[in-house]
């Protein structure tokens, strides 16, 4: 086919056909191929992402039973500690007084006073803001007792709460009663410094302070 020898009408017809073909190809690309490839790419990337998520979930859930058992154990311990060891934010003196009197009664000590001792250390405020959960709550216990009763009282207090700390003991004699000494004791309990955020306990009844 010699272009030069073609008649004018044939040349125009061929150009028209060429334009239709190019236009058709462009239209095919923009309206059919491009959306098709985009959709395919989105579906495939979503599929890849879902497969990765499913695989990660399955590998996480593989140790599910062991995790649940560990969680149940720790949660039980946590609930016990929260109920028995940690002073609540609301009405702390009442909570502590109840514990102290109950402990003292066990060893036959008649407690005269349980009073709150203010803490002058600003350390704990900073510590609570950074990473700690509990701060000290101190009470002064005043009573009259024998040296043996002091030993018993110290034992029963320390056994009742592993986080409790006896920070001061002052025992001095009374001239009129040689077997009854005046005892001043400062006991430090752990108290909630901030609310602890737990996801799984949110739906259940959360222990006080949590």
């Amino acid at each position, binding site marked *: 086919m010699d272009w030069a020898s073609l008649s004018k009408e044939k040349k125009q017809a061929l150009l028209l056909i060429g334009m239709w073909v190019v236009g058709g190809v462009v239209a095919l690309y923009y309206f059919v191929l491009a959306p098709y490839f985009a959709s395919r790419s989105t579906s495939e990337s979503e599929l890849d992402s879902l497969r990765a998520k499913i695989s990660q979930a399955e590998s996480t859930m593989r140790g599910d039973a062991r995790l649940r058992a560990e969680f149940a154990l720790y949660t039980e311990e946590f609930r016990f500690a929260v109920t028995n060891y940690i002073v609540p934010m609301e009405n702390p003196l009442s909570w502590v007084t109840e514990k102290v009197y109950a402990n003292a009664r066990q060893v036959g000590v008649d407690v005269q006073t349980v009073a709150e001792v203010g803490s002058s250390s600003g350390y704990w405020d*900073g510590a609570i803001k950074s990473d700690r959960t509990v701060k000290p709550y101190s009470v002064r216990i005043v009573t009259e007792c024998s040296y043996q009763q002091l030993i018993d009282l110290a034992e029963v207090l320390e056994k009742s709460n592993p986080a409790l*700390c006896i920070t001061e003991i002052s025992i001095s004699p009374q001239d009129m009663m040689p077997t009854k000494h005046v005892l001043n004791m400062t006991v430090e309990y752990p108290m909630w410094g901030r609310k602890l955020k737990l996801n799984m306990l949110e739906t259940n009844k959360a222990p006080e302070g949590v």
Partner: protein
Amino acid sequence: MSIRVNLLNPSEARRQGVVGVKFMIHVSIGTAAALFMIFGTLGYMRYQTAKRDLASARNIWEVREPMYNSILKMKEDLATEKKFQQELRGWQASRIEWKPLLIELRKICPPTVQLRRLSIRGELFVKIQPVAAPADGETAAPAVRPAGQAMRWYGITLDGKAWGAQAEDVVVRFVRTFGNNTLFKPLFETSPRLNSLQREMSQDGSEPVRVFSIEGQTKKREIKEQKAPQGPQ
């Protein structure tokens, strides 16, 4: 000599090859169309398969997601609970259990010595941790200043009276025994010292007594998180 004369018009000339131009054009277009059809069909099939797989993966994820999220929450809670337990263990490790020490003190006290006053006073000591200086070119981040490391220590004071001809010796021996005792020795920063020893006349005018005061200071005990040796206790 032979002469070849071409009497054909150029428009009338035909290609003399094995395959004609028209045939080549038809075959090219046909091949391109066939390839387009084959790849298009394959691509479409692949797309349909991916769509089916995607739908099935979505269904699986719909079931797995709540379980997975619940496990993640459980893990998060477990970490919080463990940290809390470690914090409580740290409190426990920082305290001194007084019962065995009070019993021991009564045991080591000589018969001619009467303890008049026992005073134990706990103090909180905070060791400030230095903040790392920002490197050159870095702006100092508004970081929360570390709270420091909290430690407890205790001052122990014993006031008492000693009777007898060699009361001074008895008191000095008592100070030594107190400092070297297996229960007390590991607690002390330095050996307890005799703070005062005075002669005091008894009220009835008989035997003089020695009034003494002994002071000791325990080592600093950190209140830091303690990991459980094996599992929860």
